[in-house]
């Protein structure tokens, strides 16, 4: 818009930041354009919106699962619409919650008369905006429920999980919600299973470097060349401990107990394990961290059912990675083992 921006300054900032983008204010729209060109065969984009819906929806009598949040964390959430995963995704601007008109439209698009689940990460802006969209949909007679993901142990005390941020546990929780809905479960049952998956997930991360925002070109936080911060948030929110960089084994030994004591996970438990890269950390590093976690968990008598390693929930080019553990029982295991197929995650 004229008068609000300085194109020359922006171009200079963008070049320092060194990203392959066009207009920094158009990144969200353009990433959705590109995503649809790649993966849009089975998706519909709602007119004039960054809202994607599976073709064939709404399905009469079937619960609809809507996920979403700010963009900038790809493939979260855009890549998680698919079979036994989400049915629709609502994309906000970079790191910004999607406005209520978007989630309202998504609720209508997946409403088969059996209820709609809004499933997203626990951030104040997201709650405000999704709650309003839910109210608008409810005023039209749609039964909208909400489940928030709040797996990050570093962002709040164990007895107040509603203060905690949502992070990479999304992958498991979306899978379980999607598989439950696809199996024909009613909305109360889908909510129960999704909350159970959420309640049995814990995550903790370590950040090694910051990232830059396309619109500003500025780093989201400062951290020294030889430092790391345990518990740092996806948007650079302060963590619980800043230290000098440790080895992978030492870092794993620091981080795992913070998770284990939180649920608590006990000897004899079975878990799914997920290592999530924040964007610029190599698979090499994540495999080495996984080696450490598997050894430590074996010492604790906790068995790992499945391991997932990759960039599931990134923050631009931030360096670091997080660990997520999901404690399994029979019904969660059955759901999380259901074949899943979406651009970000395919498992048989």
């Amino acid at each position, binding site marked *: *818009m004229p008068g*609000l921006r300085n194109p020359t300054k922006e171009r200079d900032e963008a070049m320092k930041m060194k990203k392959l983008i066009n207009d920094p204010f158009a990144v969200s729209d353009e990433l959705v354009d590109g995503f649809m060109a790649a993966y849009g065969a089975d998706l519909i984009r709602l007119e004039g919106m960054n809202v994607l819906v599976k073709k064939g929806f709404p399905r009469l009598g079937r619960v609809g699962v809507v996920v979403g949040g700010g963009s900038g964390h790809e493939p979260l959430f855009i890549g998680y619409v698919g079979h036994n995963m989400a049915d629709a995704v609502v994309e*906000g*601007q970079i790191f*910004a*919650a999607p*406005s*209520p*008109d*978007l989630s309202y439209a998504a609720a209508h698009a997946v409403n088969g008369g059996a209820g709609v689940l809004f499933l997203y990460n626990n951030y*104040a*802006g997201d709650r*405000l*905006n999704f*709650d*309003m969209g839910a109210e608008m949909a409810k005023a039209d007679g749609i039964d909208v429920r909400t489940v928030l993901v709040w797996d990050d142990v570093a962002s709040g005390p164990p007895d107040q999980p509603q203060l905690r941020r949502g992070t990479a546990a999304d992958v498991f929780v979306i899978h379980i919600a999607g598989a439950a809905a696809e199996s024909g479960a009613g909305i109360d049952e889908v909510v129960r299973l999704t909350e159970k998956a959420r309640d049995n997930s814990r995550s903790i991360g370590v950040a090694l470097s910051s990232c830059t925002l396309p619109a500003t070109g500025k780093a989201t936080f400062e951290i020294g060349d030889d430092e790391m911060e345990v518990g740092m948030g996806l948007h650079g*929110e*302060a963590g619980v401990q800043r230290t000098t960089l440790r080895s992978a084994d030492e870092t794993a030994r620091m981080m795992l107990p913070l998770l284990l004591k939180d649920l608590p996970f006990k000897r004899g438990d079975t878990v799914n394990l997920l290592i999530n890269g924040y964007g610029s950390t190599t698979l090499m590093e994540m495999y080495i961290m996984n080696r450490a976690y598997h050894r430590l968990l074996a010492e604790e008598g906790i068995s790992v059912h499945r391991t997932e390693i990759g960039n599931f929930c990134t923050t631009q080019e931030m360096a670091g990675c997080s660990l997520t553990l999901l404690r399994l029982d029979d019904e969660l295991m059955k759901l999380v083992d259901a074949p899943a197929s979406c651009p970000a995650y395919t498992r048989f």
Partner: protein
Amino acid sequence: MAAPAILTPADIEAWIRLMAQAFEANMERLSQLDAALGDGDHGTSMVRSFRAIIAKLDAAPPPPDIASLLRLAGMTLLSVSGGATGPLFGTIFLEAGKQAQGKSQIDLAGVAAMMNAASAGVMARGGAQPGDKTMVDALAPAAEALARASAEGLDLATALAQASAAALAGAQATAAMPATKGRARYLGERSRGHEDAGAHSVALIIDVLAQVAAQPQAGSTTTNKGEH
């Protein structure tokens, strides 16, 4: 000629257009306030939103009734502002619009009801109470001032002038408060000494309405852009 005792649809449209001008004039100041405690985009966010509102008003014959005008403003704020601003400022106009449903003009009692609904709506949505260093610290005093003025049988222009003064005082009072809501709460004690940008936007909104009500006839423009 005395200031009118009622607001007409033309007055409400004038209010919206004057708010847009006022936000343009105060954009830098609001962003500076916000930069101290947040990410510094409050001013640009409000300007962007009001430009979109004006574009809608200019694109088609404006809605003829007060409720629709307010709903247009509220829904546009909701979809354009982004972040927490959209739902919170959108709620002001959406709740006010609900109070105006079916009315072709609003008297002081009606304006007091609108402001009360806006204040209650924002508190319910955002969870903030007076004293939390938010826009509520301007909105709640304004609603109370209007309710008192209405009960005392004052005229509309005087009542809104009192509400405007209360809103401004409330916004200025946020400087001494520590932040408990939003991103600013991570600053703790360091947030003292800085006024809340959202509270200032509320004070601006009410001040512009007071200016409209003080005009002898509906829809006349004013040269005072309400700089604080």
